[in-house]
């Protein structure tokens, strides 16, 4: 009851909270930009690869497809393990 009062606004307007809110907003915007960018470009890459593979003999096709998929996976792992805070100790 009465959580939103004078006390709340005092804290909400503190430099610390304002900074945290800004950091949070920036984080979300960057994250979703990056996510949609990734989703769209990955879909395009799959399409391109499939078009190219279409003309190849069966065995070559699956070899090349696995090769491509392996590179995508490696990229995803690299993205996940981008330097986190712990790497700066």
């Amino acid at each position: 009851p009465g959580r939103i009062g004078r006390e709340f606004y005092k804290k909400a307007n503190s430099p610390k909270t304002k900074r945290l809110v800004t950091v949070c907003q920036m984080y979300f915007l960057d994250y979703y930009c990056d996510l949609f960018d990734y989703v769209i470009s990955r879909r395009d890459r799959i399409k391109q690869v499939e078009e190219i593979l279409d003309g190849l003999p069966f065995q070559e096709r699956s070899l090349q497809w696995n090769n491509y998929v392996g590179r995508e996976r490696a990229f995803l792992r690299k993205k996940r393990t981008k330097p986190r805070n712990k790497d700066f100790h």
Partner: protein
Amino acid sequence: MSSFLQSHFNSSAIPTIRSTRTFRRNPDLSPTKFQQDQQQDQQQQQQQAYYQQELHSASSIPGQRQVSSHKEIRQYAEQTLGSGSALAQAVKLPKGEDVNEWLAVHVVNFYNQLNMLYGTVTEFCSPSTCPRMIATQEYEYLWQDPMNRRKPPVSMSAPGYVEALMTWIQGFLDDDSVFPTKMGVPFPRQFPALVRTIMKRLFRVYAHMYCHHFDEINELGLQTHLNTSLKHFVLFCREFQLLSPKDYGPMDELVSRMLDDDGKSK
């Protein structure tokens, strides 16, 4: 199999929601799930050979072709922040991708998002405002000390619980045998079960924020971000069947509404 994983995670003995309605416990792994895991392992082995060759060229994949300008993407993200259909597409496993790799990226993401969101309410969520980790008066989440499973789960303050939870998860993220960083190193066999447990517990942080800090989040102008984050979270959980309806507890209705909305817009 790492010692950290062994000592901190046992999928058959996971705590624990105390609810005044019913006692809730974690379901065991189903046999079908186990089969899926085995198939994944095989697929993983096949992939590895290719994968290792690519150690050095990994960075050359993205940006082969610039789809849209960064500005366009940014506008798109701003517009869709909060809209379900783009997110529903984004959670889908890309063709040919390893499921564990995909789960891992997303666990890191939701962990980061919750860190950010909860971080903004830390001033308003203290042991005195929230002496217990609850979501409505009906649900209390108890903490099981991962180092000592013989101890019964305990009631904690909300900030205490969130801190313990985040530290517990960070332990896995930093453990190379659980969340491998080197190319070609596989995920442990129990990885999907661990992901389900992590996601189940992360959800409780959303539940606490929605049930007890939504007014504040609203006043801070972060409600869109919280909603987007939750929507992304539940869409992801649905896609990979990570949580069951009972795990949503008091949020059950809101969650099913979010999922319904998405169904219509597709």
